[in-house]
């Protein structure tokens, strides 16, 4: 029996095992492959195609070339949604990661009851976005009603409200990743720093943080893509309200993020579906580019270690 050796010496398959499995193709891979074609491959290809078409339903599509993309880029509400999402992403990256890192740092300092706190901080992750949105809209409305106003009265209320909501939900999640990273920093290194006379802050910034850089990269990209893909919370908390009316009759929903903007373009009027699909393709490219950059970053870090 001859094995195909890989560079690390362990092989992933051999003739002995490959032949019998290959014969079982219909049982092992076919169900997933069929569902995957129906649930992803076909809708994806069709989605790309339809972005170049004018249509209300799939069967009446007419090829119009790039005009959907032109209209999408001219759309003031889409541009607004992009900048709003970008601003929100920056704010949430900053707030969530700084808070989560310091919570994780404090919880790894052997304080009593740290498991209990961890449990509590992680809990909001289990609650769905729609429910979270309504819980917080009740709370914000309760607070703001004391000042005679309400959550959807001003765009800035919606922005900070969503930011608080997302911090509440995501800090626990990022904290878990940071804790895993912090526990991986070797004790020897910390001890060496101590012997060399470094104080607590010097140890934190010169030893701990450089060593948890992989976790920091992961968390930054997670918060970035989470903010860009955010939909449920946005829909349930403000739904894009309040609406601003431009002089030329354009309507901009001031707290509307990209995903919600695409959704509304699709389903509020059947005429703009081609534009909505073009927006969706642009959105996909944005998210994909972020993922590729993340991949490069994490690969680089792996090499360094």
């Amino acid at each position, binding site marked *: 029996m001859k094995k195909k050796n890989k560079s690390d010496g362990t092989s992933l398959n051999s003739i002995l095992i490959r032949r019998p499995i290959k014969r079982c193709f219909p049982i092992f891979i076919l169900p*997933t492959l069929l569902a995957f074609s129906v649930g992803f491959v*076909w809708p994806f290809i069709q989605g790309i195609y339809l972005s170049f078409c004018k249509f209300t339903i799939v069967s009446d599509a007419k090829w119009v070339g790039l005009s959907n993309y032109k209209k999408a880029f001219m759309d003031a509400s889409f541009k607004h949604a992009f900048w709003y999402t970008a601003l929100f992403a920056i704010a949430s990256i900053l707030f969530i990661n700084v808070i989560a890192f310091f919570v994780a740092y*404090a919880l790894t300092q052997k304080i009593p009851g740290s498991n209990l706190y961890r449990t509590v901080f992680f809990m909001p992750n289990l609650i769905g976005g729609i429910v979270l949105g309504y819980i917080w809209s009740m709370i914000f*409305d309760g607070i703001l009603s004391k000042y005679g106003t309400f959550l959807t009265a001003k765009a800035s209320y919606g922005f900070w409200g969503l930011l608080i909501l997302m911090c509440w939900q995501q800090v626990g999640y990022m904290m878990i990743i940071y804790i895993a990273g912090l526990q991986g920093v070797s004790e020897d290194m910390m001890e060496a720093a101590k012997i060399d006379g470094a104080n607590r802050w010097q140890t934190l910034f010169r030893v701990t943080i450089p060593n948890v850089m992989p976790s920091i990269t992961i968390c930054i990209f997670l918060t970035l893509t989470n903010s860009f893909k955010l939909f449920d919370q946005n829909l349930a908390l403000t739904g894009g309200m309040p609406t601003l009316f431009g002089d030329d009759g354009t309507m901009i929903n001031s707290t509307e993020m990209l995903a919600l903007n695409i959704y509304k373009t699709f389903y509020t009027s059947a005429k703009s579906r081609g534009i909505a699909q073009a927006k969706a393709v642009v*959105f996909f490219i944005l998210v994909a580019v972020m993922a590729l950059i993340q991949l490069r970053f994490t690969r680089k870090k792996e090499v360094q270690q």
Partner: protein
Amino acid sequence: MKKKSSTLSIVVAVFFTLISIVYVMPIVEVLINSFKLNSFVNTETFALPTKESYAGFSNYIKGMTFGNYPFLKSAFFSAYITITSTALIIICTSMAAWYIVRVNSLVSKIVYYLCVFSMIVPFQMVMFTLSGTADRLKLNTPYLIPIVYLGFGAGLAVFMFSGFVKGIPLEIEEAAVIDGCNPLAIFFRVELAMLKPTLVSVGILEVMWIWNDYLLPYLVLDRTMYMTIPIHIQYLKGSYGSVDMGATMAIIMMSILPIIILYLFCQKYIIKGVAAGAVKG
């Protein structure tokens, strides 16, 4: 020096206890308000129920049939869809991942890279065409929607499983072949036992995703007949002019209570599973 750090840790502990209390307040608020009469939820959101605002369990009783759709029906559909879809995803994708890693042919490579690719595609990209496809193939019932979930959720699951299968030594399976096992027996008797930790992680990730998912079932399911809990809540809040806040809070409470109880019992696995998914995805 030691004494100083122990007083510091007590200060930190007290601080975190306070933060924890603040942290659970939103959920406590929902609980409190679910026992208040509707008119008091907006005006006295943060007060405990008084004699005149206390509604007893009437909100819960009202919530059961609120919005002309029984809550228990949507709860049933939510549970049913979550359990069947997760089971289907776990079984099918672990089998597929094993095939992909062990056969390593051109087809399996293509499938693998398509799966990885699908992980970066946001749902908005395919939502319109996916719901159309599901409609045409009559997958728009809770009984067949697991197929849609398997299709759209296959990427991450296949990726995680194949990562794990790569770490399993081939010799064990070869021994099974020599002992006369057919591939099905190898998979279900040998492979699944070793995949157990990943099965739990992937299972938890899928359960959390599907139970809380709003948009996919909203677009795919025939909404006049089938609702899940997130759809139900959005429907109540979104389409009613004057919402009965008390009853809505009762419904929200009923929908998050099962998850929180489940979480308290198996939080170790949940946190581990989520962390594994985050680091890989």
